[in-house]
């Protein structure tokens, strides 16, 4: 078991190392002639107006919030699914009830119009 995690640790290092080399290599063998116009931020050839780091639409924020709720839900459901063999009918129904409550939450967000792109 520990071997497997050692392998994953080594794999993560390798997976970071290969693209890091690939990105660094052109810096060694490629040309390097920066100038003011080349470094400019692309905006269809016009001069850039203002900063890009601006306030964003709150709609994106609401979707991120709904996502958070459902992501935590699935974390609870994974152990439930793995231990399904050992669960009595009561526990299965409890799990179903849990999903239904979250479904009701989704319906609430739907009725409130949080899911509409306006």
């Amino acid at each position, binding site marked *: 078991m520990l*071997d*497997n995690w*050692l*392998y*994953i640790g*080594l*794999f*993560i*290092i*390798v*997976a*970071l190392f*290969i*693209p*890091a080399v*690939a*990105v660094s*290599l*052109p*810096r060694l*063998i*490629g*040309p*390097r*002639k*920066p100038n003011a116009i080349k*470094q*400019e*931020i*692309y*905006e*269809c050839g016009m001069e850039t107006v203002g*900063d*890009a*780091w*601006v306030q*964003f*639409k709150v709609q*994106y924020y609401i*979707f991120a919030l709904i*996502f958070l709720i*459902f*992501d935590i839900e*699935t974390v609870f*459901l*994974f152990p439930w*699914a793995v231990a*399904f063999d050992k669960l009595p*009918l009561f526990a*299965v129904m409890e799990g*179903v009830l849990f*999903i239904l409550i*979250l*479904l009701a939450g*989704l319906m609430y*967000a*739907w009725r409130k119009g949080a*899911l*509409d*792109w306006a």
Partner: protein
Amino acid sequence: MGDPINLISQWFNNLLLGWGLAEGLVKVISLAIGAAIVATLGLVTVIALIWVERKIAGRLQDRPGPNRAGPFGLFQPFADMIKIFTKEITTPDGADKVAFNIAPILAMASVLMIWAVVPFAGTVVGANINVGVLYIVAVGSFGIVAVLMAGWSSNNKFALLGAFRAVAQMVSYEVPMVIALLVPVLLARSMGMNDIVAAQTPWFIIIAPLAALIFLITSMAEVGRAPFDLLEAESEIVAGFHTEYSGMGFGMFYVSEFLHVWTVGALIATFFFGGWSGPGAENFPILGILYFYMKTFIGYFLVTWIRLSLPRIRIDQMLAFNWKFLTPLSLVVLIVTAVVDKALEMAGVERWAYALIMLAANLLIGWIVVLILKAVEPNRKRQRVEFEHRPVAVAPKSTDS
């Protein structure tokens, strides 16, 4: 003699031990080499895939595709590689330099890391951990962070728009994807990849076709390819989150996208098409690898085909499709699977009857969904706009009469 890969690794271990190295060090070295081989294999596959995909795209769009460099254009990806390696990497003014340079590395790494737990064959599996599915979901989310970092750090408005869309899209489609993944986990009673493969008698595509369909659609959205390529929609926001990237910085996003599609094919094959299993695969792992690659390619081809056939969807359609259709549907599929599974287990039916009843339950859900969709929008018919016939080119009237 049926397992040459483990044979070679054992021989290698013994060789190193014979040199007088400590046992722990030998283990680390052989595991590191294994990891490097699997990761390199992924990248080599991408080189082949770029050629394959361009050839398929050419065939579907009625053109030859790459055919100049080498026989059938086979050397085209290598020519592209040489070109992209010798190009300058520019960093725009005012960009967040650290995040800007880390983002392409992270994008590539997030896809590569998934391959640590994918079983190639019964005995050829990198890490057979008991939380494989959870690991895939966790590592796959790094890709979203990479896209966000790239878009945010570029200091470019198009890139920022692409990053915002990435939040809305990739984060949203993660929900039905994970819930669809719960179905094979529930059916196999395990999160280990090899356990899921072993539990597939018959394949889960028969027992849970709806979950497979949801997983296919949501994975395509996660990859960010047409019809879900809103985060880099070239006709709307230039190139989306990687507008400011040049040379290998862009190359990494490009390669990671190809590898991600291939990974989606591998995951679909593992979760729903029996992975490496097939006739004779238990005794001969090489056969298992062959089956696995064939099944993966089928999944890959399917995604490519859909990509080349469908136009891009609008952002409101994309979000409505996810939150108002896929998410409730996946939850219902999960509930029905759980209840029917428990009921059949208590009734103690045979395996073939179990599979048939599960299939019937899935078909029933599909039928009800179609009925509901028809009830919601009864008069929705495909609108066909008839244009007056206009010839594109008219032959000049002959003047000599």
